[in-house]
């Protein structure tokens, strides 16, 4: 009944869908008011990254993408949130409303402009390849990378900024699995563990800052002084 090409095209649409939702979670990270909600958005984003890797791995029969997906789920969906909650428990749970530099609708509109920019600058590159997966993975990966940087700029709290950095990494990974799907597994494993260490170090740093100043707002840290 359903032949091979139909299945293939359904999987392509699913990969594209997970790419679009991946982009959407990035907007969620920017717009969510609560730290907790931002973190949940990040977990969702990592799940979608893993889903995309699984679909691509199945479509092109690249086995090590399954390993990438597994590592992503274990590290980014389980270990990382646990680590953040463990090191900065009070900050993640207690803080409900967090401040932003711009109001939310404005910052979302700027984020849309960034996304269109990402599509615009990748369009000459997309002409070089006929691969279907690259057509949506590369621009969306780049967009998420830029949006992660934008999150760091627009958020004035330390924890969402950490989430911004981690989502930048997600974006780079997302573009990576389509462009360089034959990257040695060891490089991807190294990158994944790197993220874990980054999160650990930042988490400890944030909790130390919180101990000292009683706050994690970046606004108060513009003036550095010793002692």
């Amino acid at each position, binding site marked *: 009944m359903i032949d091979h090409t*139909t299945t293939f*095209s*359904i999987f*392509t*649409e*699913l990969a*594209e*869908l997970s*790419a*679009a*939702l991946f*982009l*959407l979670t990035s*907007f969620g990270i920017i*717009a969510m008011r609560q730290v907790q909600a931002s973190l949940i958005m990040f977990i969702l984003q990592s799940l979608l990254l893993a889903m995309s890797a699984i679909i691509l791995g199945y479509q092109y029969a690249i086995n090590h993408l399954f390993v990438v997906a597994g590592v992503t789920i274990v590290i980014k969906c389980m270990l990382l949130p646990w680590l953040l909650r463990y090191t900065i428990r009070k900050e993640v749970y207690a803080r409900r409303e967090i401040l932003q530099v711009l109001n*939310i*609708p404005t910052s*979302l*509109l700027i*984020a*849309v402009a960034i*996304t*269109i920019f990402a*599509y615009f600058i990748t*369009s000459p590159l997309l002409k070089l390849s006929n691969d279907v997966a690259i*057509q*949506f993975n590369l*621009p969306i990966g780049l967009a998420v990378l830029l949006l992660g940087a934008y999150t760091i700029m627009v958020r004035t709290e330390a924890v969402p900024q950490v989430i911004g950095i981690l989502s930048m990494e997600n974006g780079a990974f997302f573009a990576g699995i389509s462009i360089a799907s034959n990257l040695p597994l060891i490089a991807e494993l190294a990158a994944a563990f790197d993220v874990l260490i980054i999160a650990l170090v930042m988490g400890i740093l944030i909790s130390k800052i919180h101990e000292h100043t009683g706050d994690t707002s970046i606004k108060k840290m513009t003036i550095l002084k010793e002692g």
Partner: protein
Amino acid sequence: MLERILYNIIQVLTVMIFAPLIKGILNKLKENVQSKTGQSILQPYRDIWKLFHKDEVISENSSWIFRVTPYIVFITPIFVTLLIPVLTTYPLFFAFMGDMVGGGFILSLGGFFAALASVDTANPYGAMGASRTRMVGFLVEPVFMIVFFTVSFVAGSTIPYIVQMHWVTPVSNFFDPSHILLMIAFFMIILAEAGRIPVDNPSGHFELAMIDESKNLEYSGPSAALIKWGGAMKFFVLLCIFLNVITMPWGLAQTQSLLAVLFAIPLVLTKIFVFILVLVIVESSLAKLRLFRITEFLSAAFIISIIAMITVFFK
């Protein structure tokens, strides 16, 4: 030709007859979730029946707009019904008289007159409700526009009968990211446009917090009945656009026989019932947003529709 006109009339009758029932089921389910017994699902019919048998009071200082508005509110959803697929997958007699944008304009005409009429009587709550509805309205409008543009990009047309077939031919189109994102955005618009919970509380009785309901406070008797019935039909029509055009045409009549068309009625009602279950879950688990948070809710819908458009446009 003659049977297409007949089916068009059946379509209108379906919307007129079952619209209050949908409201009734929705109210009953919501009360059940709050562990109350709830009113009968036939209560909206009884309300309309009772109101039609009551006398009407009209302020001496009101103009013709106030008197004409109930009829416009009642008639506009019927016009839209003629344009959209409620029961059939093939176009009916009036199908090519207007596209989805035209349908949107006709629906908003009713809203426009309702807003004018509420200001007309100089009731302070009326003017407040009107201005709030306009605020929600002009935030919803761009999302509607982007959704329609995306649809016309994807399907090459804004005639609803053509659009609905595009999503399932071939089946993989159903999983198209633009399709799923449009569904999410349109769902959020329906919540705003029908005055459901994250935007407005439909069962609230406090005039200061009302958005949609406070426009109709001045109406009584048959006019109130027409406005109630028209509101229920507008909700039904929005659900039909969402479920049959934006989501999928499954369950609609494919052949031209009368039996198939009649059999489509329970299938469409089942689809709407499933949607209502989702709506009840959403409404019961969320709190009403503060008035100035509505912009954030609708800007999220706007962003989702924009992403849907981007994924189509740069394909």
